[in-house]
C-alpha cells in the first residue's frame, strides 16, 4: 500500500479559543490516528531517521510496535533511548532532525513520517495506561555521582547513571526540577504536569533531587569533589542578555527570562490566586526572532494583550524560531516587523515605558554565522507605541557556580570547555554538558550530552578509560 502524502493531522485547539487560555495547543493523536500515521513508515532498512536523532532512538522499532498496536512495547523501546519522551515529542525540532532525513519526506510532494507526534503519542499512552512502571533492578556500583542542575541535561545524565547502578544526587537551585522545561517553555506548549511526570520517573530510578540547593553557595565545589566519585555540570545558559539600549531599566521592560519565569514557574497567569504578579500590557513589543521570542509573544497574548508585535532585525527567512511555532504565532494574531531594530525605549514621567524607537534595516553581506548582516537604513527611525517590552535576544552562561570552580577552563563566551567525545572538562572527575557547554541550544541536544556524558562517566568510574590520562 502506498503511504498517503501528508502527515496525519494532529487535533489542535482553535486559535480564537486558545489565545484565551494556557492549555496545551496541540492535543495529541488518538490510537487510530497513531496507527494510521505509523503505517506511513516504510520500515526502510537504511532508516536514516535514526542518524538524525541526537540520542539515536530506534525509530522504525518503536513505530513498528505502534502499527502492531503493541503500545506498551513501543514505549519500552522508546524509553531505552530517551528518558523524557513526552517532553521531546512536544518540543524537539523534528523538522531539522529525524523527520528531515526520513525517506518518506524525500518522495516528491510527500511529508515525512510524523515521528515527533508518534513519540508523544506513545509516551502519553504509557502514562495513561501503564500504572506500575517497572524499573529493571540494577546491581549497585557503590559509587556516587553528583549532578548539578536539573534541566534536561542533568536529568538525563542522572537517569542513565542510576540505571547503571550509580548512586546519584541532583542539586537544583530553584524550588522545582526541570530547568528551562519548568521556568521557560510555557504551559501551552509543554504542560508542567508532564514535566512532573517525567521527573517522577527519574526519581523512581532512585535518583535523589535536592531542591533549593545552589551549588557553589550552599554546597562548595570542594565538598562535591571530596564526596563524589564524579560530577556532571548541567547548569544551563540562564543569564539573560540585554541590548543595553537607553531605557532598559524603565518599568515595563522585561527580559524574556523574567517574564516567562513569572508566568511559568511562578504561575503569574493565575495571579492573584498565586502570589507572583506580572504586568499585563495592552501593546506589547517583543524583541527577537527565536523560540523564546515566540513563547514570550504568545504568553503575553494569553495574558490579555490587545496587540503583540515581534520586531526582528533580519527577515522571516533568517529567523531561528521553529517554523511550527512561528506559524502558530501568526495564526494567533501576532504581528511581525522584519528588518527592525530597537534603538531606545521611551518612558513617561513616572518611569514607565510608553514606546520603542526603532530603525529599519536592510540585509548586507553574510556575516560569520553565514546569515546576511542587517545594516541600519539612515533616516528610517520610527516609534512603536508600547506599554510593555520583552527582550528575547539570547542568554549567557549561568555565572555563580563556574566562578567557584578553580581549574575549569571556559571559552571566550564563558561556556565550559569539554572534550567533544567524552564531555570531560579540564578538571579531573568533572564532566559537563547541555547549554553550559554549547550555549543556548535544544532540549534534545542537552539530553544527548547528558546521555553521552553518563556513558563516559561509567567508563571512567569502572576504570575502563581515563579521559585525563
Amino acid at each position, binding site marked *: 500500500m502506498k503511504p498517503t502524502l501528508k502527515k496525519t493531522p494532529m487535533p489542535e485547539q482553535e486559535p480564537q479559543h486558545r489565545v484565551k487560555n494556557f492549555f496545551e495547543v496541540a492535543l495529541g493523536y488518538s490510537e487510530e490516528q497513531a496507527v494510521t500515521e505509523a503505517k506511513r513508515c516504510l520500515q526502510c532498512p537504511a532508516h536514516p531517521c535514526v542518524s538524525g536523532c541526537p540520542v539515536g532512538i530506534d525509530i522504525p522499532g518503536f513505530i513498528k510496535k505502534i502499527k502492531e498496536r503493541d503500545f506498551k512495547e513501543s514505549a519500552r523501546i522508546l524509553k531505552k533511548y530517551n528518558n523524557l519522551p513526552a517532553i521531546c515529542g512536544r518540543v524537539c525540532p523534528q523538522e531539522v532532525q529525524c523527520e528531515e532525513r526520513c525517506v518518506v519526506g524525500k518522495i516528491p510532494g510527500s511529508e515525512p513520517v510524523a515521528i515527533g507526534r508518534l513519540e508523544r503519542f506513545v509516551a502519553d499512552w504509557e502514562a495513561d495506561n501503564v500504572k506500575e512502571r517497572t524499573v529493571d533492578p540494577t546491581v549497585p556500583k557503590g559509587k556516587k555521582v553528583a549532578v548539578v542542575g536539573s534541566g534536561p541535561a542533568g536529568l538525563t545524565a542522572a537517569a542513565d547513571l542510576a540505571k547503571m547502578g550509580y548512586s546519584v544526587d541532583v542539586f537544583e537551585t530553584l524550588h522545582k526540577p526541570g530547568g528551562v522545561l519548568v521556568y521557560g517553555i510555557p504551559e501551552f506548549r509543554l504542560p508542567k504536569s508532564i514535566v512532573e511526570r517525567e521527573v517522577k520517573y527519574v526519581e523512581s530510578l532512585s535518583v535523589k533531587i535536592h531542591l533549593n540547593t545552589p551549588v557553589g553557595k550552599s554546597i562548595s565545589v570542594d565538598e562535591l569533589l571530596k564526596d563524589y566519585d564524579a560530577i556532571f555540570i548541567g547548569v544551563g545558559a540562564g543569564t539573560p542578555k540585554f541590548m543595553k539600549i537607553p531605557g532598559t531599566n524603565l*518599568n515595563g521592560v522585561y527580559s524574556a527570562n523574567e517574564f516567562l519565569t513569572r508566568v511559568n514557574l511562578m504561575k503569574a497567569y493565575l495571579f492573584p490566586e498565586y502570589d507572583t504578579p506580572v504586568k499585563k500590557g495592552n501593546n506589547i513589543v517583543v524583541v527577537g526572532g527565536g523560540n523564546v521570542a515566540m513563547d514570550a509573544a504568545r504568553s503575553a497574548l494569553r495574558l490579555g494583550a490587545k496587540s503583540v508585535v515581534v520586531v526582528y532585525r533580519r527577515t522571516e527567512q533568517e529567523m531561528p524560531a521553529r517554523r511550527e511555532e512561528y506559524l502558530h504565532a501568526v495564526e494567533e494574531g501576532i504581528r511581525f516587523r522584519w528588518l527592525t531594530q530597537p534603538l531606545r525605549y521611551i518612558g513617561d514621567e513616572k518611569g514607565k515605558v510608553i514606546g520603542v524607537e526603532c530603525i529599519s534595516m536592510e540585509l548586507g553581506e553574510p556575516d560569520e554565522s553565514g546569515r546576511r548582516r542587517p545594516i541600519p537604513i539612515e533616516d528610517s527611525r520610527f516609534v512603536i507605541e508600547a506599554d510593555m517590552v520583552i527582550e528575547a535576544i539570547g542568554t549567557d552562561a549561568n555565572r555563580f557556580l563556574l566562578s567557584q570552580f578553580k581549574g575549569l577552563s571556559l571559552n571566550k563566551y564563558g561556556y565550559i570547555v569539554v572534550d567533544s567525545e567524552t564531555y570531560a572538562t579540564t578538571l579531573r572527575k568533572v564532566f559537563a554538558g547541555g547549554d553550559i557547554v554549547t550555549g543556548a541550544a535544544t532540549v534534545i541536544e542537552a539530553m544527548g550530552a547528558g546521555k553521552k556524558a553518563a556513558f563516559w562517566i561509567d567508563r571512567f568510574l569502572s576504570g575502563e578509560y581515563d579521559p585525563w590520562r
Partner: protein
Amino acid sequence: MKNRIIKKSRLAPQVYDFVIENEQIAAKARPGQFIVARAHEKGERIPLTIADLYKDSFRMVVRGVGKTTYELCMMNENDVLSDVTGPLGNPSEIAYFGNVMLVGGGVGIATLLPIAKELKKHGNKLHVILGGRSKEYVIMLDEFEKIADELIITTDDGSFGIKGVVTDGMDLVMNKSKIEVAWAVGPTIMMKFCSLKAKELGLKIWVSLNPIMVDGTGMCGACRVTVDGQLKFACVDGPEFDGTKVDWDELLVRLSQYRDEEELSLRKFKESVGDLSWL
C-alpha cells in the same frame, strides 16, 4: 526538620524575629548574604537577609509590608516554610579598617547586625547610628549596645535619642572621629541620602540594595540596577555596592513597579484574614 520555624518573637509592630532550621545555610552563610523564601506552594519568592547563624539554624527578621511578609509574620513556631534557598549574594568585604561607621534604619538594622559583628571580630571600632520612625521601631538595640564603641539613635519624632534622621548622626560621628569606611542599610530612600552625605564627606560607603527579585541566582534580571553607569544584577553582583555610584532614583522607580498588583494582593488577603493592625 528543614525550614521549620524554631523560634519566633516580636521586635516591633509588624516586625518579627525568626529562627529557621536549615543546616546547609547555617554552615555556609557569611555576613551580607541573603536567602530567598517561599511561604507556601502558591507563594512568591522573596529575598530576606540572614541576620545571624546558629548551629543548625539561621535568623531572619521580617517586616510586614505586603502579602508575603504579612503571611510570614503570621506563621508560628513549628510551622514550616515551603522553600528556603541560600545563602545567596556576595558576602560583605570585611577586614580591619580602623574606625567604621554603621548606619541602620528599619529592618535594615537586622541586615547590619551580622556585618557589625564580623567587623568587630576583625578589631574595628564601630560607630553605630540607628534610626527609626519612633522609639519602638529601633530594633535590636541591646545587641548593638554590646558591640558598638559609639552608638547614636535618631527618631523622626524624637521619642528616643536625637530627633532627626540618620544623616544628622553621620555628621555627629564625622565631627569627632576619622572614619575609614561606612555601611548603610535600610529603606532605599535612607540609603540614598546616606550615600549623598558620604559623597559630600568623601567617605567610602557600602549599601545593601533591595530591588525586587525573582530567582536570586542571576537568571531573570528583575533585580537589575545601574551602578557607575553599568547594568548590574543585585543578586549575583551584589547585594552590596558603592552607594555613591548607585542610580538611586531609577531603583526607587523600579521598586514601585508592581504597586497596583501589590495592593490588590494585600486587599484580597486582608479580606480573608481580617484586620492586621494587631500584628
